[in-house]
């Protein structure tokens, strides 16, 4: 997973070559890092490969829930092979005051760069099928 994360850095540096990336291996490490400083952009993979966690999906969504509750102004980019998992937090996402975008990890990197730029600008962009999933 870290290979993909490193590539994320490479592509983010295409937006801003001075960008510095911090890769954290677990939700807890990410929480600790957020406690130390607030980054310009937080890239979250919902399918976290966390050792000891019974359910990868639960831990990723739980972390996103934590971020949305505790850092309402943070710019967030969800970059996951299973972005549908974030649907359950749609109400929290709507209330989020910072930038927020969701990008399917299996799309080309141009979509990643576009999503990151949207979030960095403090705007919101989610897939069409995502917001009105129920209706």
């Amino acid at each position, binding site marked *: 997973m870290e290979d993909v994360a490193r590539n994320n850095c490479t592509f983010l540096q295409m937006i801003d070559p001075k960008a510095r990336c911090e890769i954290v291996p677990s939700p807890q490490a990410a929480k600790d890092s957020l406690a130390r400083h607030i980054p310009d952009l937080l890239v979250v993979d919902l399918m976290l490969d966390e050792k000891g966690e019974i359910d990868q999906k639960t831990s990723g969504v739980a972390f996103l829930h934590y971020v949305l509750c505790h850092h309402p102004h943070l710019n967030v980019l969800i970059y996951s092979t299973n972005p549908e998992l974030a649907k359950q937090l749609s109400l929290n996402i709507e209330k989020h005051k910072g930038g927020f975008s969701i990008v399917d990890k299996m799309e080309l990197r141009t979509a990643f760069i576009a999503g990151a730029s949207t979030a960095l600008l403090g705007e919101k962009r989610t897939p069409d099928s995502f917001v009105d*999933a129920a209706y």
Partner: protein
Amino acid sequence: MSYRTVLGALLGLGTSISYYALLSFLPLANHIDGSIYDSYIQLKHQQQHSEKIVIFSIDTIVGGAPQYASVLEDLLNNSQAEVVVINPPQHWYGREANENGRQLRQLIKQYKDRIVLASMTAPIDAEYQTSIALYNYMIEQTPIGGSDTPEIEATEIHGFFEFAYQSGQNGIFDSPASRHSLEGEFIRDDDSKDISLKSVAALALHKLSQRTERDVSVFHSDSPLTSTARIQTPIWNLKAQIHNLSELCGGNKRIGDCKLSNVERFADLSDKFVFFGHTDTQTNAAEVHAMLTPRGEMSAVEVQANHILGLQSGDVYLPLRKWLAIAIVGVGGVCFGIVINTGISGLLAQKKNHWIVRRTLLSISALFLIYALTATSSLAAGVLLPISAPIISWAIAILTSSFVLLYRNQERMVERQLSSERKVVIDQASKQLQSIADRVHQDALHHMKLAMDWLELIQIQSPACDVSVPLEKMLRANQSIRENLIDTRLCAEKLPISSELRLGLHMAIRLHTKRLRKRDELILKVDMNANPIRENSSSRWIEAREGIFSFYRESINNIIRHAQPPKGRSTKVAVDLERVADVAVLRVTNDGGFSSTYLAETTENFGTQVMEKVASRLPNGKFRRRVSAKGDFQVELSWSMNGFM
């Protein structure tokens, strides 16, 4: 009280009363009880002071009615006999128009308060009225208004005596000699009219009590718990009280001139009951009316004397009323049912509880012992408790209840075992599917992504190098793998039955709604009317139920997202689940949530498609959405439950 205890009690009650009713029709229980009662009563009442009884045997007398009248007149007038019971010989019949009967009629008219005429009848039956022949020729008639009118009422002078011919040992227990009635309703042989008579013994004692103003206790024993319909009195041997009239009159077969009052021992018969009738079965078998008694064969006259002695001495045994006997059997059945249920539970418990089994056996024995003691003490107090029928009923009820409870438990254990095995297999399959999907996600897709990144970086670094074709192919492969993975995950999630649904669809709806309210996701007032819809356990229904439940979740989610404040204006939501005949309906209604415009806009969206898909998979499934004039929004799903039989 648990469901199982109630089931055990009902099983005990039902089986014991059913078997008791069945046994009541069979003579076996009556024979056993009769044998016990007779043995006890005869043992207890060995000796009787029978000096109050004088029986005159008329076996060898050939004299006519006037001669008897003369002897009787002597006994009543000179010897002052208290009560004379006459069993008229058959040759007295046909004396109506005969002057010979006049003396007899005069005698009866004069001493009507001291004479009882014994009229033979069949044993009284609760089902139908028995006919009875009366001795009209012994009652003086007075011509009034052109027709003869009897000077004495038939009921004043006639006492009935139940006679039945029995043979063999078994006959003793059904004999009216042992168990007899004090009063009865009959149909008169002469004019077919109803007549209510006292028994010979009851009428004799009634005359005694009226004359001497003494009370005879048994006539007032009108207890709500015991019945006087068929009482039992002891039988004594009264052979010593029988006197052959012919011998007493010096071997003279004509007894008209015989003055018994001159014989010393018959000079004073006050306070004594005098009986007239045939007693010797050898010479007059037809007239004796011999009956089987616990003390051997006896003439009707001896039995009548025994009944009077029993009633007068108060040695009377009364049977329990039928409803009370049934109630006792029912209460016993309930006790045994509960005890058996506890025992079976202990026996089948995973760690067999031998103490419970031992305690159950002890309790059963104790209950039987308590009843045996109660029956014995009741017998001593003069109450005849049914013995064999309740005990046999309870014993069969215990066996039946044990069998039913064991069978039911066994069935449930097998079902539970199968169910848990099914659950393990399903959970395992579900986990395997999830695990495969996760591995593909983590491994194959991860490497695919790295390869795509690599190609995209090459493209950026060397724009001349065209990687669009491999990238396009990889994107398609990704898409295909992803779609298959989503299907696999959905399949894995659907495999196990939703835990809430195990309790039924109505409970799942209630629990889900409660959970949403607890988490403050649903803040509207909820009017919950989810009722049980008599679900079956077919695999088709269990599968369809998952779909219906997801329909409900989807509906309530829509309300939370679009009708509940802050987005909507709704204040309450009503949930209805009901079944009418074979059609089940699920309705979710909220007030003022959606406009008809919104409804038009959303007909093609994802949620609607899901709901329509659920409806299309149900037998006669119909999905409707409507907005009322008030603006209430209703989602309705209906389907046929018969499709899941």
